[in-house]
Every structure is written in structure tokens, then in C-alpha cells.
């Protein structure tokens, strides 16, 4: 008897581009017998060099490695022929097995030109146990509308969807009882007790916000157990909730023992900016930090100032004050900064700058404009041009004809300089992430809501020892081809990392731009 399936799903290419091989793994784990149907034209498109995406390549790798196509399947072009040869399906279908829960069928069809026809063909060849028709899985809005108009069952990729409310989970609202208990117990409460009083679970690095005319904050902290080389957190003990002290409420930044009047001339304007700097961007225990907020909230300026601070070279005494692990050595906390933004190029390949006119620097400068603006807000602006961050200390490069000219910097009365060994900052794009790995690097992923989930996963997989990644964005500004506020790299990564001890997250709550700018957020131009 022919196999009946729990689910028959015709998967469209955007699902692979967003989620890589995730749909196969999801259905394989889901239980029941599932069939994924792929149009061979779609397969060819995923593999074509000029259109390939990281996720598409991952899907092809999965198929190549895991799908077994038994002998004898798919021979015979007509019913008579199939009856004669004993073949179970038409010649236009290749049927393969992955495991007990998942089969894959490759079907030759009209693909994009006749999706309803393809669905009908699948429906003739295969059947479900409850008689329901095959479904199409796609997140492409126009395709979904067209399919619904043809009365074809459509589904979104639930396994990729994340509630955008996750960006507000960086802090929970506290109550008076908890605040009173914290004050009674010297501003520290064992976490178990705090959870009991608040009646809500809390996790490491999360904040509690107490409502008042100028809000109080508490933070969940613990004693971290590191491995011998201080590369990995192995465990956490003595979990507690700690009420922030007066220095913190006055928003004074501290790096190690050094209390700073400002960070390269930048001062946090409110508590959420302060917390983002102190406990996220400048915190060496946080190797994965999510910084969310709408336009004008200060994300770029804060990330830029914190990143530059941590690649500057200070003298030995200052390194000791800052608590750098190798205080006798040289260099900043990180060797350099790598900046990543999604890049939808004009008329060129996806994620590629090659097609733009002008020099390479001309092409990159537009993508760096928000950082150039941030540079102007810092004390660095009067001491060095932004370009010197990207110039080699001694040699001309493909980006610049001349090497760096900036010498010593003077910041808050302290002498510092850029690395004499390497460029301080590099900009790259996701298309070249394969084959690269980074060490001792601070990676900033900007506009992460416009990365597809699989793309961001590949970026983070490249991070080697000593790296920190800062992932910035606003899910409500997701406007890429295959992303929206429920399916995007930013929230997908947050959901994956939220409960790890090395992760922090914060959403900046205020807009510091003009009234017209704030109002523009609600301006519907679509």
C-alpha cells in the first residue's frame, strides 16, 4: 500500500534562504511521517552561483548528504509503463528517504510559472493520512496571496518564527515588596528568594526595573566559573539579584577600576543607555550582546564608542586599571573591529559591493555613514579622521593609497593609540563569511533584522577565541526580501541565545532625535 503522510509540504526557496536546512531538521524531529516536496527548478536555482545564498547552500548540502534515492524509483513515463516496470511514480518524480520521519521528493514541474499545477500534481501522486491536501510553505507575501486566491493551503515556517516581543524581555517589572527586601538585605538577595517574591522566573544578566519617578534597577548576577584559559563559562553559582548602587544610578561608567567621566566624550543619556554600555558593550563576560532600539535611540553611537575604546592601546598602568587580562602585554581588549551590515547592492549580486561605481572606499563609505556620524560625536573627531581606523598603520592597501597618519590620542587626560600592527576597523559582508574566522575581534552586526536567520547563524559560527559579537537592530524595521518582524536574524538569534550565561540583551527605550523624526516612525509609506 502506498505510504500515507502526516504532512506533505511543498517548500519554496525563501524558506531555505532564511533557514538553511532547518525545515528538514524540523520535520525530521516533529514526529509522524512527513514528505518535503521540492521543485527541481528551485533546486537548480539554489545551486546557481549567481543566486546562491548561505541558506540555500546549506539546504543543498543537507540533501546531498542525507537523502537516499533507492534504485528503481521514478522509472516509467506513463501508467502503463509504470504498471509494466512496477515503478511507483511517474518519471517526473524522484523519491528519496532521509529517516523514519522524513522523505523527500524532487519533482519536475513548471515551478514558479505554475505553482497551482505543481501542487495538483503532488496531490495526485501522494496522499495524507487525513486526506488533507499538500501545503505550500513560504514566507513570500505575494506568493502567499496568490496561492490563497487559488485556494491552495499555505503555511508560514513556524519553526523560524519568533515573537518580536522578545526584545522587551531584557527587563521585567519589579514590585514594592521586592524593592523593600533588596534594601533590607544590603541590596543583594539570593535569586531563589527574589523569584519567590516577584513570582516570576529571572535569568542571569536580566534586569528588574522598579517603577518610580526615576526608576531603580536591579541586575541578576552570579559568580562565573571559567575554564582554565578563560575562554568558556562552565557554570554559574551564587546567583543573586543586586540593586544598583549610587554610582551606577548616577550613570558613571567603570572599566575595571577606572571610573570614566565619559566614553570618548560620549555620556549615557538615560539608564538604559548606561546599562547597555556598562553591562553589555563594555562587559568582558558578555561575549554575545543584543542591542535593540528604534532609530534615534543611540545604538550606533554607543556601540561605536564602546568598540573603539576596547581596541585602543593604553600604557601598562592604564591597562592594569582597566583590568585587561594581560595587563603586562600590549594592545586593547580586542585586536580590531569588524563591522557587518546587510547590503542590498544596486544592480549587482546580492550581498556584493562589486557592482557599485567608484573606488572601493567610495562604495563602502555610504554603508559606514552612520559610523562616520557617530565619529563626529566623539572626542576622536578633532584628533583623527574616521578613515584612519580603516588604514593600515604602515602600508597602503586596496582601500587606501596611504597608510595611517594619526599618532597618539589624548582622551580624558590619558594617552592612547591605535594598534601599530593592524587596521582598527574592517567592514565586510555576509557573502564572504565562508572560509573566514575571527580571533580577538569585536564584531558588530548592524541592522541584524535584515539578515536572514541562517545568514546570522553563519556569521556567529565564524567567531573564534577571544571574540565578542554585538548584534544590533529593530525587528519593526525588518524590510529585507525574506524577513519580517517574526522571521529575521535578530529575533531568531535572540531566541536561541537568551538563556546562555554569556549573553546579554537590552532595548533602548528613548528616541533622541527631533520630534519630526520620532513621528516618522508611524508614517506609513506602504
Amino acid at each position: 500500500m502506498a505510504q500515507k503522510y502526516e504532512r506533505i509540504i511543498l517548500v519554496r526557496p525563501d524558506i531555505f534562504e532564511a533557514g538553511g536546512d532547518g525545515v528538514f531538521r524540523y520535520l525530521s524531529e516533529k514526529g509522524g511521517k512527513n514528505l518535503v516536496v521540492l521543485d527541481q527548478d528551485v533546486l537548480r536555482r539554489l545551486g546557481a552561483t549567481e543566486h546562491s545564498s548561505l541558506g540555500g547552500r546549506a539546504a543543498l548540502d543537507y540533501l546531498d548528504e542525507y537523502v537516499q534515492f533507492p534504485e528503481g524509483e521514478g522509472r516509467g513515463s506513463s501508467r502503463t509503463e509504470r504498471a509494466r516496470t512496477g515503478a511507483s511514480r511517474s518519471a517526473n518524480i524522484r523519491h528519496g528517504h532521509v529517516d523514519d520521519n522524513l522523505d523527500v521528493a524532487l519533482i519536475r514541474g513548471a515551478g514558479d510559472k505554475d505553482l497551482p499545477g505543481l501542487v495538483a500534481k503532488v496531490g495526485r501522486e501522494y496522499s495524507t493520512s487525513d486526506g488533507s491536501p499538500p501545503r505550500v510553505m513560504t514566507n513570500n507575501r505575494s506568493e502567499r496571496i496568490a496561492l490563497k486566491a487559488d485556494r491552495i493551503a499555505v503555511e508560514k515556517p513556524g519553526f523560524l518564527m519568533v515573537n518580536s516581543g522578545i526584545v522587551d524581555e531584557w527587563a521585567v517589572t519589579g514590585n514594592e515588596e521586592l524593592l523593600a527586601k533588596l534594601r533590607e538585605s544590603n541590596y543583594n538577595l539570593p535569586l531563589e528568594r527574589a523569584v519567590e517574591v516577584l513570582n516570576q522566573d529571572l535569568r542571569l544578566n536580566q534586569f528588574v526595573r522598579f517603577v518610580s519617578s526615576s526608576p531603580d534597577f536591579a541586575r541578576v548576577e552570579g559568580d562565573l566559573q571559567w575554564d582554565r584559559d578563560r575562554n568558556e563559562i562552565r557554570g554559574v553559582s551564587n546567583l543573586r539579584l543586586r540593586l544598583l548602587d549610587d554610582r551606577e544610578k548616577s550613570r558613571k561608567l567603570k572599566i575595571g577600576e577606572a571610573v570614566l567621566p565619559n566614553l570618548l566624550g560620549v555620556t549615557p543619556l538615560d539608564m538604559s543607555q548606561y546599562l547597555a554600555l556598562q553591562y553589555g558593550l563594555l562587559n568582558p563576560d558578555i561575549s554575545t550582546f543584543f542591542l535593540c532600539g528604534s532609530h534615534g535611540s543611540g545604538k550606533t553611537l554607543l556601540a561605536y564608542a564602546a568598540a573603539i575604546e576596547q581596541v585602543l592601546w593604553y600604557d601598562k598602568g592604564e591597562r592594569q586599571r582597566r583590568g585587561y587580562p594581560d595587563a603586562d602585554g600590549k594592545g586593547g581588549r580586542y585586536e580590531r573591529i569588524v563591522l557587518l551590515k546587510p547590503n542590498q547592492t544596486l544592480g549587482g549580486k546580492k550581498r556584493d559591493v562589486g557592482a557599485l561605481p567608484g573606488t572601493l572606499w567610495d562604495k563602502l563609505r555610504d554603508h559606514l555613514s552612520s559610523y562616520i556620524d557617530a565619529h563626529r560625536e566623539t572626542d576622536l573627531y578633532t584628533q583623527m579622521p574616521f578613515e584612519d581606523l580603516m588604514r593600515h598603520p604602515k602600508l597602503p592597501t586596496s582601500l587606501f593609497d596611504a597608510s595611517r597618519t594619526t599618532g597618539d590620542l589624548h582622551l580624558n587626560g590619558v594617552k592612547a593609540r591605535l594598534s601599530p600592527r593592524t587596521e582598527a576597523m574592517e567592514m565586510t559582508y555576509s557573502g564572504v563569511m565562508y572560509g573566514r574566522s575571527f580571533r580577538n575581534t569585536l564584531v558588530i552586526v548592524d541592522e541584524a533584522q535584515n539578515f536572514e536567520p541562517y545568514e546570522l547563524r553563519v556569521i556567529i559560527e565564524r567567531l573564534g577565541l577571544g571574540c565578542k559579537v554585538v548584534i544590533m537592530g529593530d525587528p519593526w524595521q525588518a524590510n529585507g526580501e525574506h524577513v519580517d518582524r517574526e522571521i529575521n536574524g535578530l529575533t531568531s538569534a535572540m531566541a536561541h541565545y537568551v538563556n546562555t550565561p554569556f549573553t546579554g540583551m537590552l532595548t533602548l527605550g528613548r528616541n533622541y532625535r527631533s520630534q519630526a523624526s520620532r513621528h516618522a516612525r508611524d508614517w506609513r509609506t506602504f
Partner: protein
Amino acid sequence: MALDSNLQLYTFLEGLRVINDRDERGLVLGYSLAQSLLTTPLTSRRQQLQHDEVRAVYHGLEEAVSQCRNSPSSSPSSNPAYDYLCELRQVVDPLIERLKEAGSQTSVGKNSLQRAVELQLQKSRNPQDRLRRNGLGLMDSSIRRGRVYGQGNILRVDYDLLKETFRA
């Protein structure tokens, strides 16, 4: 008669923009919704009930906008939003306590917004935080949807948005 298109969730939420801090805005909004739905006496006829509930929400938000627009110099704490939030909490927090102890008191239909918010708050371990998230969620959804134009029933559209908020 068609509703004045200025009387809709979107315009009230836009008015709350006077509270610049996102979390504070979420709290004021969440508490305002709870106060409107938990304290307004309602009828039991289904369609009229839905309209009454949405209008009660509008009324509450109108009051919230008006209070939060007060000048900081006239506010005891110099933060009008915080002062209004304190007023709201004086009403809503005891209601939540009663809900937790005695269960739902509503006599209106089981599909009403009032019932939905009661159930949600009853089940919630930290109701204050739940209200904040309700406020943030409604704000984001409404702004994304935008102003409602030319649709037959603004009340219906806003009702659905509110229903979605209390289901989350």
C-alpha cells in the same frame, strides 16, 4: 453613523508618545487598558458589549493622554506619566489581588475583553510585567497597522487588535 476616524486606538496611542520612555509608555498603556476593562460596567448583549468595551478603552486612553500631557512643573514628581501611573495602580493593583484570591467576578460573556484580561492576569505570575508587555505589544501592533481608514467599522478593527493583545 460612521465613527469619527480620530477616535481610534492609533490616534490615542500616538498621543501617548508624549511619554518618551518606551517601558514607561507600555506600563501606562497596560494599566490604562486594565482599568478601563476591569472597572467599566458593561451590558451583556454581544455586539453592544464589544462596542462598549472598545469605547471604554478609548475613554481611558483619552484620560491617560490628557494626564500625561501635564506640564512636569505641575506634577508632584516632575514626571506626569509616573504620577498618572501611580493613580492607575491604586485602582488596578487591588483588583488584581482580588482576582488572584477570588477568581473572575465578571458576569459578562466569556468572549469579552474583560474576561480575557481577567484570565490573563489571574494566570500571570507577575501581573505588573504582564500589563507592561500588553501595553508594548498593543503599541507596536497598532503602529504597524496604522490609522484605520475607510473600513466599515473602526470599533471592530480595534476590538480585534485588543483581543489579540490579551491572547498573547
